[in-house]
C-alpha cells in the first residue's frame, strides 16, 4: 500500500517535472525589471505584481500564440548600475522576449545602452520628462505635454493662477520638467518675478522654511499655485507642513505629478483635501474596464484595501498592447513587434482608447483630480480628447525642431525637421 502511494506520488512529481520541461522550451518569457528592495521598492513592487497579474490573466485566457507566458522576475534593488546588469542578464542569459520595468529616469537611462546593444524591448510605465525616444523602448507613462502642461493650463485658466512656485526634488525629471514649464509660462506672459523655483534633496523632510517662503510668496494678493514635482517620500512631510502652517488648497493649491492613490494610502489625508494631482488615470474614474481591473487587482493581491494608480494603468496598457501586437505579427521577434505595435489601439481604463504612436508614446486623456478625504481623487477637469505624447518638448529651444518617428522612411528617434537630419544617437 505504502509503496503504491509512493509510486503514484513520485510519478506525479515526475510527470510534473517533464511537463514543466516541455513547458519551459515552449513559453514566451516576460522579464520584470522592478526594484523589490531599496528606496524604490515602495513604488515598484506594485508594478511587479501588476505584470504578474496580467501574465496570469493572459495565461488563463490561453496564453499568446498558443504558448504560455512565463515571468522572469529580477530585483535591481534601486541600484541604478544594477539595472543595466540585470537587463543584460534578462536579455543575454534568460533570453526574454519583452521587459516591463524601471521607474526612475536614471534607471531607464542606465538600461538604455544595454537594451539597444542587445536589441531588446522594454515598456516603461511611468510619467517622465521626455526628451528621449529609443527604438527599443515604449513609453506608456505621460510625457510632459500629457501631464505638466495641461495641469498648468488648468491652474491658469480655471483657477486663475498668476504666480507660480515650481517645487521639485533635485534630479533629472523635475529639473527638465521645470525647465519646460518655465519656458511655457514665460511664453504665456508670466514674468520672472512671478516664478519661484525650489529644489530639495531626495527624501527631504524638513519643509518649514520652504513652506513659509511659499506662504510669503503667495501673500502678495495674486493667486498663487504650486506645481510640485516633489518625488515620492518627501511629499508627505511637505503636505503635513502645509497643513500645519495653515495653507489650505483654497488659498494656494498644489498640483502634484508624483502623488497618486498609492502614495496617499500611507497617509492621513485630512490636510491634503482639495490639493490637486494631474494623471492620465484615477482609481475613482467610473468605467467598466476600470471596475473589472480594480476587482481583479484586489482579488489577485488578496487585500481589499489596496488601491490602483496611474503607473499601473500604464503597465496594463503596455502589456495589452504588446500582447495584441504579438498576436498581430504572429511572432515575438523584437523588430517585428516594434513595427507592428505602432498604431495598435487598446481600451484604456478611463473609458477611452489608447493608441501607440510612431514616436513610441501613447495617446492619453489628461485628468486633474482633487484629493478627497478617503485618499481618492475627484476628477475636476479633463482634456476633451486624448493628447498625443510628445517625445521632444516644443518649448525647449534645444528640442524645438526635433521629432521622433519610428516608421519608415524617417525611422529616427530625434529627427531634426529643419535640417532633415537624424543625429544618429537614439536617445
Amino acid at each position, binding site marked *: 500500500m505504502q509503496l503504491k502511494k509512493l509510486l503514484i506520488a513520485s510519478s506525479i512529481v515526475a510527470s510534473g517535472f517533464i511537463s514543466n520541461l516541455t513547458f519551459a522550451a515552449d513559453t514566451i518569457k516576460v522579464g520584470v525589471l522592478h526594484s*523589490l*528592495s531599496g*528606496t524604490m*521598492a*515602495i513604488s515598484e*513592487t506594485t508594478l511587479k505584481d501588476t505584470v504578474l497579474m496580467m501574465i496570469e490573466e493572459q495565461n488563463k485566457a490561453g496564453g499568446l500564440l498558443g504558448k504560455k507566458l512565463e515571468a522572469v522576475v529580477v530585483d535591481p534593488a534601486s541600484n541604478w548600475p544594477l539595472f543595466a546588469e540585470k537587463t543584460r542578464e534578462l536579455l543575454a542569459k534568460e533570453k526574454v522576449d519583452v521587459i516591463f520595468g524601471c521607474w526612475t529616469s536614471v534607471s531607464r537611462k542606465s538600461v538604455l545602452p544595454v537594451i539597444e546593444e542587445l536589441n531588446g524591448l522594454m515598456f516603461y510605465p511611468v510619467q517622465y520628462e521626455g526628451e528621449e525616444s529609443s527604438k527599443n523602448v515604449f513609453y506608456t507613462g505621460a510625457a510632459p505635454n500629457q501631464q505638466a502642461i495641461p495641469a498648468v493650463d488648468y491652474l491658469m485658466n480655471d*483657477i486663475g493662477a498668476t504666480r507660480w512656485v515650481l517645487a521639485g526634488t*533635485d534630479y533629472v525629471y523635475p529639473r527638465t520638467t521645470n525647465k519646460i514649464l518655465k519656458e511655457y509660462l514665460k511664453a504665456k506672459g508670466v514674468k520672472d518675478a512671478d516664478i519661484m523655483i*525650489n*529644489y*530639495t*534633496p531626495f*527624501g*527631504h*523632510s*524638513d519643509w*518649514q*522654511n*520652504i513652506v*513659509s*517662503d511659499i506662504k*510669503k510668496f503667495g*501673500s*502678495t*494678493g495674486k493667486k498663487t499655485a504650486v506645481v510640485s514635482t516633489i518625488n515620492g*517620500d518627501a511629499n*508627505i*512631510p511637505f503636505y*503635513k*507642513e502645509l*497643513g*500645519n*502652517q*495653515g495653507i489650505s*488648497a*483654497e488659498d494656494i*493649491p498644489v498640483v502634484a505629478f508624483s502623488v497618486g492613490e*498609492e502614495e496617499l*494610502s*500611507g*497617509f*492621513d489625508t485630512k*490636510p491634503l*483635501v*482639495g490639493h490637486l494631482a494631474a494623471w492620465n488615470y484615477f482609481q475613482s474614474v467610473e468605467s467598466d474596464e476600470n471596475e473589472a481591473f480594480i476587482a481583479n487587482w484586489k482579488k489577485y493581491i488578496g487585500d481589499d484595501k489596496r488601491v490602483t494608480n496611474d503607473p499601473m494603468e500604464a503597465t496594463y496598457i503596455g502589456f495589452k498592447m504588446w500582447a495584441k501586437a504579438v498576436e498581430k505579427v504572429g511572432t515575438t521577434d523584437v523588430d517585428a513587434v516594434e513595427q507592428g505595435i505602432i498604431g495598435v489601439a487598446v481600451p484604456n481604463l478611463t473609458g477611452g482608447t489608447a493608441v501607440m504612436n510612431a514616436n513610441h508614446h501613447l495617446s492619453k486623456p489628461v485628468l486633474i483630480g*482633487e484629493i*478627497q*478625504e478617503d485618499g481618492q481623487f*475627484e476628477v*475636476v477637469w479633463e482634456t476633451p480628447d486624448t493628447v498625443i505624447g510628445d517625445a521632444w518638448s516644443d518649448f525647449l529651444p534645444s528640442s524645438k525642431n526635433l521629432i521622433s518617428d519610428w516608421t519608415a522612411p524617417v525611422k529616427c528617434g530625434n529627427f531634426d525637421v529643419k535640417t532633415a537630419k537624424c543625429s544618429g544617437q537614439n536617445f
Partner: protein
Amino acid sequence: MMRFFCILLLSLSVFSSQADVSTSPKANMHETTETPSVVNDALIIQASKKLAASSLRKMPAQVKQFAEIEHPKVRYVLTQLMNGDLYYVKATKQIVTREKDTDGSYKIWHGISKAALPNVKRSALKKVKTNNAIRKSIRGLLAQLDLTSPDKGVRLAAMQELLSKPSDETVTLVKKLSLKEQDEDVLSLMNSVIYVQQLSSADAALQLEAAKALQNSLEPSVKNALEKTLAATDIKNIELRKALETAISKIEQKRSIFSIIENLFFGLSLGSVLLLAAIGLAITFGVMGVINMAHGEMIMLGAYTTYVIQQVFPQWIEYSLFMAIPAAFLVSGFVGILIERGVIRHLKGRPLETLLATFGISLILQQLVRSVFSPLNRQVAAPEWMSGSWQINPIFSLTYNRLYIIVFALMVFVALLLILKKSSLGLHVRAVAQNRDMARSLSIKSDWVDAATFGLGSGIAGIAGVVLSQLTNVGPNLGQAYIIDSFLVVVFGGVGNLWGTLVAAMTLGTVNKFLEPVTGSVLASIIVLVGLVLFIQKRPKGLFPQKGRAAD
C-alpha cells in the same frame, strides 16, 4: 540655551498684537435652535434639493442662493458642505449627514432638521460634490454670517477672511458693526478693513489718514493694498507718497524681524530633531566608542512601534504617543541589547569589523520590516493636539508639533544627563568609558554595563523614532535618512560629550535654516558639510573635546 528659549518666547508674546485665534470654525457648528418660520422651512428644503442635484459648474450660484435664505440652519448646512460631510439620498435628493459609528455602521441624519433617519441605507447616499472654488466661496459667505457671531474667535477669523478682498457691501456692514464692537482685536481688524477701503477713495486727505493708520497692521493684504495705492498715486502727491512709503517700510521692518525669529525657530526645531536622533548615538558611539551603523534602524523600530500602538488601540489616537514613548524605548532598547550581546561584544576593539557588521544588521532590519510590514509606508496619525499652529500675529505663527518637539527634545536631554550624572548606572557607564580595566578591578561588571549602555542609547533612538513618526514617513528607509546627520552631530560636538551634542545639533540646525533661504536646501547641506570637514581639520576632536587622560 533654555533661558534663551524662554526669552525668545517672552519677546514673541510682547511682539504679538493679537491673541490666539486658532479657534476652529467647527466650534460654532451647532447653534441656535429657535423655531424657524414655516415659509423659510419650505424654502430651505427646496434650495437644499437644488444644491444636491447641482452640477459642479452651477454649484457656486446655488450656494450663493442658499446662503441668502434666512434660516438658522443655513450656516450648519454650508459648514457641512464645506467640510465634505454633506450627502444626499439619490432617489429623493434629500440632503443628509452621516457619521460612522464605533461598530462600523453609519448613523444618518436629516440634513436640516437633524432628525435621525434609521431607514435610509448608506448605499442610497451620494456625496454632494464640492471643489476648491466652492469651498472658497462658502468660506467667504460664512465669514459674512460669522461677523455677528457672539464668539470672539469666530468674528476674528471672519474678519481676516474678509480683509483679503473687501467689497463695498461688506465694508458698509463692517462699519455698522464696528460701532457696536467691544473687543479690541476684532475692532482693530475692522478698522483695517475700513482703512483699506479708504485707501482707494478719491479724497487724498482720507487716503493720507488711512495710510497713517495702517502702518501698524501686519496683515499681508494691508501691505498689498498699500503697495497698490503707492503704485497708483500721482508722483506730485508727495505727502501721500511719503506716508505710504513710511507705512510700507515700517511694515517691512517688522516683517524682517519676524522672519529672523521665524528662521531661528525653524533652526531650533531642526536642531531638536537632530538632537533626538543623535543623542542615542552620542551614548553608544561617544561613550562606548562603538560605530553603530544600525542606529538609524533603532529609530525606525521606534517609529514602527508607534504605528503598531496606533493599530492596537485605534480608539486612543490622542494618547498614542504617550504610550508609544515607553514602548519604543523598550523595543529599540531590547533589540539594541540583543545586537550588543550577539554581535558587537565579539568584535570589541575592531572598529572596522564592527562598522561592517552593524551595517549588515541595518540592512537585515530594513528588509525584516519590509517583509513584516510591507515595503509601503505606514500611516501614523497625528493627534489633534499636534496639528495646527499658534498664530501669534498675521505673519508669524509657530507650528504646534515643532514646538512640542523642541520641548520634548530638551526634556529627553535633561533626563539623559541626569541618568549619566546622578544614577549608579551612569556612574558605572562613565567609569567604564574612562578606564575599563580600572573599573573592572573595582568590581564593576563591564559586560553588563556595556549591554545596558547600548540598550539605553538604542532606546533613546527608539524615542526619536516616535517623534519622527510625526514629522516624516514611517517606512523601511526612515533610519537611513538620519544616520549620517547623527554621526555629523556627534563628531561635531565632540565625542563623548552630551553638551557638545546639544550645542552641535542646535548649531547645525540653525545654520542650515539660515542658509537655506539664501542658497537652496541642496547647497545649504553641502555648505554645512564642507564647513564641518574644515572644522574637523582644525579641531579633530570637535567643539568640546574631552580633556585629560579620559581623552586617550
